[in-house]
């Protein structure tokens, strides 16, 4: 997977988790949903680790860094070149 593909997969998994966490907040007894949530957490953690090894830290003060300090590296998320195109091909 190249950077855009990894970021796309990570964004999809993280969105699943954001949405599922909101659901679990009001449905804490739904064990089936909770099991799916926990499974995606593990999958996302593995992908996040390999993304960070190749492209640098994703989290402020929770991700390690190679030297020199990588956190400051461009691009930042608000820059167009940071982001991937959905669907792959350029519209």
């Amino acid at each position: 997977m190249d950077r855009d593909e990894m970021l796309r997969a990570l964004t999809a998994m993280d969105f699943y988790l954001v949405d599922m966490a909101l659901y679990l907040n009001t449905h804490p007894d739904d064990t089936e949903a909770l099991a799916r949530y926990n499974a995606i957490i593990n999958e996302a953690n593995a992908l996040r680790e390999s993304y960070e090894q190749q492209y640098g830290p994703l989290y402020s003060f929770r991700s390690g860094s190679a030297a020199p300090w990588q956190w400051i590296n461009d691009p930042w998320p608000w820059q167009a070149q940071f982001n991937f195109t959905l669907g792959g091909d350029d519209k």
Partner: protein
Amino acid sequence: MWIYEKKLEYPIKIKNPNPRMAKYIISQYGGPDGELAASLRYLSQRFSMVTPQAKATLNDIGTEELAHLEMIGTMVKQLTEKASVEELEKAGLGAYYTDHDRAVYPVSASGTPFTAAYLQSKGDPITDLYEDMAAEQKARSTYEYLIQLADDPDVIDPLRFLREREVVHFQRFGEALRLVQDYLGDRKRVSMRMPDRKR
């Protein structure tokens, strides 16, 4: 405590500048039904919320709204960064340019600076959750009007994502309201809460 995640909740990659759309979309940054008001509303109300489910709902939706604020700021930046001063002025952003250049500043579409008067934090959990459900509907309507004004798929796509989040948040707040009503007892459904006693 918050941890910044160095990516967007949903990608924004706008190829064509469009200062006209930026002028409208900025309302969801600093306008009456925008993401800043939403985030501050929920993150302030959580301090006086009751029940574990409703506290978590306010905390987490308030946090997600910060990610939406970042998406809106990103859209405004990408829509304006390559526009000339003449294009900005033609799009009605001459006054904005005078005060802010192409920087992102919290104003409504009509140029009114952000004010905390857009939100409430009332101390009554039922009152607050009704406000939150109304706020989600108002934001949904705003996104629908913005989608009507837009013609670029790079712009419409993230606006549709944000619109859908308003629908989900409305649903979650409705569930939280029902749980809080059950917790407080039926009396709360139809009447007012007992006023604080004078000491």
